[in-house]
């Protein structure tokens, strides 16, 4: 069973704070991490490998420093890692990103299962996983919370829906995106850490991927951000004082005034 895990390096948003004075983002010293949902993807890949054997590869598209995220993936037990990085890839929307990652995965070699986190915490789109599946013309299931069975030809999973779950079966090769409920990621092993230091991580650019410059990055993007602004925050911030009785009374009056109850 050959597995590819797609990961993204994202800012660790715990350190993103909103400045009370200017109501803008304060991002000094923001650390980069592996997108939390991708940690579940890595863990699930490792568990499948432990049961069925095979190789597990990690791939990421990003700036050169995204290599750190790939090294971290190796420390958990990923066998090899590939970085897709090129100035031409910058500014990609989810469509251009999906195309680029699909080409990168093809170049890695034959695979049975691709695992992605359900979404990245900086963009929250959940679009790249399904996009990669489409570009590779393979079936997929999004929001997988449990793998029930894997055979040589198919995989049976539970996917989280808004009001319950569906049991799905798709043929292999295929792609799944996973949610937090699926597992609890492990800590890096000492051996993994050693390997992460020494492993050679190939960087593939535009010329390596058999893809046109007009299909990647900003040029290959269908969407374009035209404006960024700080959201208006909903209303006043009022601390209700007094005894519990008074506080509760005040609260109910306020909620009545706003017609929310």
């Amino acid at each position, binding site marked *: 069973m050959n597995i590819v895990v797609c990961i993204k390096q994202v800012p660790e948003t715990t350190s*993103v704070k909103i400045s009370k004075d200017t109501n803008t983002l304060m*991002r000094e010293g923001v650390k980069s991490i592996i997108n939390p949902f991708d940690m579940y993807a890595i863990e699930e890949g490792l568990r499948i490998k432990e049961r069925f054997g095979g190789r597990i590869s990690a791939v990421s598209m990003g700036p050169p420093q995204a290599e750190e995220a790939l090294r971290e993936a190796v420390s958990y037990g990923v066998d090899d890692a590939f970085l897709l990085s090129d100035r031409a890839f910058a500014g990609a929307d*989810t469509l251009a990103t999906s195309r680029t990652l699909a080409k990168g995965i093809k170049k890695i070699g034959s695979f049975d299962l691709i695992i992605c986190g359900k979404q990245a915490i900086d963009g929250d789109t959940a679009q790249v996983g399904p996009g990669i599946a489409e570009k590779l013309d393979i079936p997929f299931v999004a929001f997988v919370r449990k793998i029930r069975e894997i055979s040589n030809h198919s995989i049976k999973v539970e996917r989280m829906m808004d009001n319950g779950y*569906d*049991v799905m079966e798709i043929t292999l090769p295929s792609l799944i995106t996973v949610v937090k409920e699926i597992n609890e990621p492990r800590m890096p092993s000492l051996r993994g850490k050693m390997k992460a230091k020494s492993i050679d991580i190939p960087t593939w650019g535009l010329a390596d991927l058999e893809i046109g410059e007009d299909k990647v990055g900003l040029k290959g993007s269908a*969407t374009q951000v035209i404006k960024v*602004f700080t959201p208006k925050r*909903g209303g006043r911030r009022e601390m209700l004082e007094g005894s519990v009785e008074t506080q509760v009374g005040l*609260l109910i009056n306020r909620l009545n005034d706003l017609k*929310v109850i």
Partner: protein
Amino acid sequence: MSIKIDIELCTGCGVCEEACPFEAIKIQDDVASMDERCNLCGACVDVCSFEAISIQGLRKTGGDGNDHKGVWVFAEQRNGKIASVVLELLGEGRKLADKLGVDLSAVFFGYSVEMQTNELISYGADKVYVADAPILRDFNDEIYSKVLVDLINEYKPEIVLSGATAVGRSFIPEVSARLETGLTADCTALDIDTERRILLQTRPAFGGNIMATIICPDERPQMATVRHKVMKKATYDTNRKGEVIKKDIDGYGVNLRTKVLEVVEEIGETVNIAEADVIVSGGRGLQEPKNFKLIEELAKILGGAVGASRGAVDAGWIPYSHQVGQTGKTVCPKLYIACGISGAVQHLVGMQSSDVIVAINIDKDAPIFDVATFGIAGDVFEVVPALIKRFNEIRG
């Protein structure tokens, strides 16, 4: 397209550095410079007082001169029942269609769905494209994508909207990728630039800390998934007339690689938090799993759903499907009551777009109070029972 900083005009004041949401600008030697993180969003152009920054070669838009016309709403159903977000999309879709002077259509997949087709017309659809077959009863990404892609290629709408539900967020990205067009996830506002006939799609990014307006200038259709509860529901009028166009899907079920084996409704009594108008959430401040009963009781009185912080879920007090926040669900109810939740950023990003937020926490300095409309610094075990008592009195 590129961004240019005129070093003659730049004073190194640093306003652009602060305005940049992507940390792409640094002031070095009293001049601003930009690195590859620049997304050409233009936030710096707007704030520069010296007109030192400009975006060059803005792409032309393909708004006119193409043959795509009309606004479509994907009318998701579960167990034959139209999802509530669809009614909101029809309300919003009507406005967009009127601005563009085009028809509003609904696209409806299911089995035995004639009655619902009439419903969609009563809610304002001028046309309903219907695919009615047993194989469409449950949500199968593969066949849903195929049918929708074919319909879009045949009838060429300029805008396609879907709810940002588990269904919409699962198969719509596949549809847009196959059509090689753009898709904007989780929109909270839509509008039309009437001059260029393009859809302005606004969505939260960085967990709601910033908002971005996104366009799809050249490709058609322009596609967006839209959050629950942010658009106004369409008005219902049974006198409305509409056209029904049936899509024949014979042969679509052959050689499918995807099978739906079982559909399990899990949440039952507790309302789905993504759609709830009122959410009462509990966190680690509840101390013990049995204390979640308080939260459930308050939620029940208010007709709301029960949410939880990651801490409470990780402690095993309540299932993951209730988790609000970065690794759980993003919610935007009319009323969110946070009980014993301190308000880690990961929680805040999942609920800060709620209309009214009430926070009850013993620690008056807890970050949850920064986003709360009304805060009560007090013991949840005193405040929540008092609230329950008062609500019970009011409701008699």
